[in-house]
């Protein structure tokens, strides 16, 4: 088991004292991601998907419940996790530093670990289907699909065991989207990482994930194998999502 969320609750509070409002972003959510598998997480806006990803990455401390990464609770210092888990976000041009050359961006996670390996950067760029010559370019010189490939290269360069894809293909052209989805599948076969793939688009999640969890109003309403989702989802809400395709 790579990651386990055990009965996790996250509550956000807002407003002045005595009139505090409490918003439950997650309510008693239990999820797990097994070795080498992809868990897809779908749900409408405000269902708690992004909060779940923040909890999984250790960026958000749960109000109640336990999170275990590789069987152990999260270390006190998040830095110890550096290089073990990574994230790929929706807009590659927001997640890449516009003033850094692509090669330097990809090398940055290695620098955090105190490693220097220029060949690994070039190798990684080739693995995601980019020419090594692109390393000296700036993000604005690349197309959207190329930029997303760079973010994937950057996420994989430390060979993490767990990745979070948060709406990673939502901002791309349909044909580019298909290329990136295939790339993620191929890289997963090659590197054997586990992944949490978050999207509002059931079609995408169904294609990429081994198991799917459906969130609604901060709760997981259904978890099932992908095959089930192609044929017979159990929960009323999952059926509605499927019909919308």
């Amino acid at each position, binding site marked *: 088991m790579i990651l386990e969320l055990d009965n996790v609750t996250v509550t956000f509070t807002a407003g002045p004292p005595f009139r505090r409002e409490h918003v439950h972003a997650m309510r008693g959510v239990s999820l797990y991601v097994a070795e080498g598998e992809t868990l897809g997480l779908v749900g*409408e*806006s*405000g269902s708690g998907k992004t909060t779940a990803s923040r909890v999984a990455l250790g960026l958000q401390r749960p109000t109640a419940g336990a999170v275990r990464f590789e069987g152990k609770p999260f270390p006190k210092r998040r830095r110890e996790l550096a290089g073990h888990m990574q994230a790929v976000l*929706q807009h590659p041009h927001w997640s890449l530093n516009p003033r850094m050359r692509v090669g330097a961006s990809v090398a940055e996670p290695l620098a955090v670990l105190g490693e220097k390996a220029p060949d690994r950067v070039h190798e990684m760029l080739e693995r995601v289907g980019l020419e090594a010559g692109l390393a000296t370019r700036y993000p604005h010189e690349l*197309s*959207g699909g190329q930029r997303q490939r760079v973010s994937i290269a950057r996420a994989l360069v430390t060979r993490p065991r767990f990745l979070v894809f948060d*709406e990673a293909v*939502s*901002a791309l*052209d*349909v*044909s*580019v*989207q*298909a*290329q990136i*989805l*295939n790339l993620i*599948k191929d890289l997963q076969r090659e590197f054997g990482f586990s992944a949490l793939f978050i*999207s*509002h*688009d*059931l*079609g*995408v999640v*169904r*294609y*990429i994930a081994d198991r799917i969890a459906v969130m609604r109003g901060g709760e997981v309403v259904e978890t099932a194998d*992908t*095959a089930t989702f*192609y044929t017979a989802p159990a929960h009323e809400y999952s059926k509605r999502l499927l019909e*919308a*395709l």
Partner: protein
Amino acid sequence: MTALLEVRDLAVEYDSGERRVRALDGADLTVAAGETIGIVGESGSGKSTLGSAVGRLLPSTANRVTGDVWLAGERVFDLPPAGIRRLRRERLGFVFQDPIASLDPTMRVGKQLKLVLGSKGDPLSHLDRVRLANPGRVARMYPHQLSGGMAQRVALAIAMACQPRLLIADEPTAALDAQVREEVLEVVFSVAAEAGTSIVWLSHDLTAVARRCSRVAVMYGGRVVEDGPAADVLGQPAHPYTAALARSAPAMASLGDRLSPVPGRPPVLAEASHGCAFEPRCPYAEERCAKERPELHVVRTQEALCHRATELVTAS
């Protein structure tokens, strides 16, 4: 029934010093009053240029080589400056990709709406119409204080303030968070339906367009290569490019299938294409595809620009 918008054989080139790019290469499009039409294409297919050409909003580096645009019976490119301003004011609404950049950063939202409405208009009712919560508060805000979804609703309120005949939405949700998209689209379509406004929605998402629009036009290499009822274009594409686009949508794949993205890259034309622009990427290409520009073929309910459209459809 006369068409609200008619684009005939429109070709537009961008000249940037030494490099010339032909963004539109003889595009044809007709939109009837009250119709919702989605224009689908990859980045660089010329859909934004087509959208701006309707309002004569092309940048100064662009020049129209051939073709004409008629909007509500008027020839857009022949109007005097005062005429085109009146046409934009009364007949056209635009919603662009980046909502915050389309608003004036130095002016409160309410005041910007007042500029469009004139002195007698009530900005709050227009903000309410696009389902913004607490319109009074929003009217006092500056654009930088708005979230992307709110700003796009404000932009829509401004575009729809004068009840235009035609709303051109150029990827209105591309810069928004995936989760707010559906809400904003819902507002765009319901507000336009109430006002009886036609919509031309430019997008790259074939399935999303097919879900909301009655008609779909697919653009490739600066031309409209297929045009027809949404369900038919998506379900039984007549043009090989549309078929390839539909195949690459993950929602269409069945269990265990591998997605097949369209091979190669979209073309960047420097001059009028000699043959079919899709020929280098097309699995069914033959000799004449590279040499002759395809004519319009009517296949079932669709119109397709493909030499082999008729024979491919009968073969399948």
